[in-house]
C-alpha cells in the first residue's frame, strides 16, 4: 500500500512540475502582452521647467547635494503603492548617490513608514529627508510620486517617474573609476 502511495505521490509531483512549467509560460505570455501595450517599466519624463539647473538646497533639499557630482533624489510618498514597493526593494545602506525624500501625511505616518521599511537609520544620517508638510514638493511643484530627480554637478537636471525597482536600479548613478596608474 505504501509503495503504491509513493508511486502516486511521484506521479502527482511530476504532474505538478508540468503545471509549474505551464504557469511559467502563462506569466511569460502576460509579460509579453504588457510589453506590447507599453505598460512595462515605462518611465515618463517630467518637464521640470524653472527647476532645471537650480541648486537642490534652494528647494529645501540637503546641502550635500549642492556639491554632488552625480546623484539621484527619489521622492516617495506614504500613500502610493509603487513607493512602498520601491522602499521595500532598497538595499541598506542606501546605494551611493541615492537620496530619498519621503512625503507623509503626518509625523506618525512618516515614522510608521520608516519603521516598516527599515529606513530610520537613513533618516538619522541625513540620506532621507522627511517632507511632512509637503514643503519641498510644493517648492518644486511636484504633484506625483515616485519621481526621481537627477543631480549633476550640484544642479537639478531632469526628472522622471520611477515605475519599478528594476528601473530605479538602472538609473542609479554609478561612478566610473579610472584604473590606477602603473
Amino acid at each position: 500500500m505504501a509503495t503504491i502511495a509513493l508511486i502516486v505521490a511521484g506521479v502527482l509531483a511530476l504532474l505538478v512540475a508540468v503545471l509549474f512549467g505551464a504557469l511559467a509560460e502563462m506569466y511569460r505570455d502576460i509579460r509579453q502582452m504588457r510589453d506590447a501595450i507599453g505598460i512595462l517599466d515605462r518611465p515618463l519624463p517630467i518637464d521640470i521647467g524653472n527647476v532645471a539647473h537650480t541648486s537642490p538646497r534652494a528647494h529645501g533639499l540637503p546641502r550635500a547635494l549642492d556639491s554632488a557630482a552625480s546623484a539621484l533624489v527619489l521622492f516617495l510618498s506614504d500613500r502610493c503603492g509603487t513607493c512602498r514597493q520601491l522602499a521595500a526593494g532598497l538595499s541598506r545602506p542606501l546605494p551611493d548617490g541615492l537620496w530619498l525624500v519621503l512625503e507623509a501625511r503626518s509625523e506618525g505616518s512618516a515614522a510608521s513608514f520608516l519603521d516598516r521599511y527599515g529606513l530610520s537609520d537613513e533618516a538619522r544620517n541625513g540620506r532621507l529627508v522627511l517632507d511632512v508638510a509637503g514643503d519641498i514638493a510644493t517648492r518644486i511643484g511636484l504633484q506625483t510620486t515616485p519621481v526621481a530627480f537627477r543631480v549633476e554637478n550640484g544642479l537639478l537636471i531632469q526628472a522622471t517617474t520611477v515605475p519599478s525597482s528594476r528601473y530605479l536600479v538602472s538609473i542609479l548613478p554609478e561612478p566610473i573609476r579610472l584604473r590606477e596608474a602603473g
Partner: protein
Amino acid sequence: MALLGTAVALVMAAVLFFAAVAKVASSAPLVDTLERLGLTPFLARAAAPLVPWAELTVGVAVVFRPDSVAVQMGVVILAGCFAIAGLLAFRLKEPVPCSCFGTGGGGKLGSRQTIAFFLWAAGVVVVRRAHIAPALDVGAAQFAAVALSIAAARAVAPVRLWIEGRGDRLSAREMYAWLPSR
C-alpha cells in the same frame, strides 16, 4: 559502490525527468529544433511528443531497474540520439536552439551534447558496476523523492515570474493614475 551507483542512477533519472516535464509543458521549441536539424515539419511534429515520453520512461526505468541491461542500453541510446543531434547541429552553419529543457533553457545544440554522451555512458558504467537492484518499495520511495525534487526545482521559475509580474501590475496601476493628469 552501491551508494555511488544509486546516487548516479538518481541523478540521471532527475535530469531525464526535468527535461521531460519541461518539454511536455511546451513542445513547440522542440518541433522547431527538429525542423532545423532537417526533419520535415510533419516528422518533426510527430517525433517531438515522443521525446519527453522516452525520457520519462527511461527515467522511471532507471529508478526502478537500474540493473537491467535493457534500461542501461536505453540510457545510452537516448544519450546517443542527443549526441547525434548535437553533431548534426555542429555541422550546420546557423546555431540551433537546444530546447533540451523547454523554453527556459537558452542553450544551443552542439559539442555539449557530444560531451554529455560520455558522461551518460560513464554514469551507466558506474551503475552497471554497482549491481544495484532496489526493492519495489525502495524504488517507489526514490521515485517519489526525485519527482518531488523536480517539482520543487520547477517551482522556482513561476514564483520568480509571479513576483516580477506583481511588480509590473502595481507599476501599471500607478501609471494609470498618472496618465489622465498629463
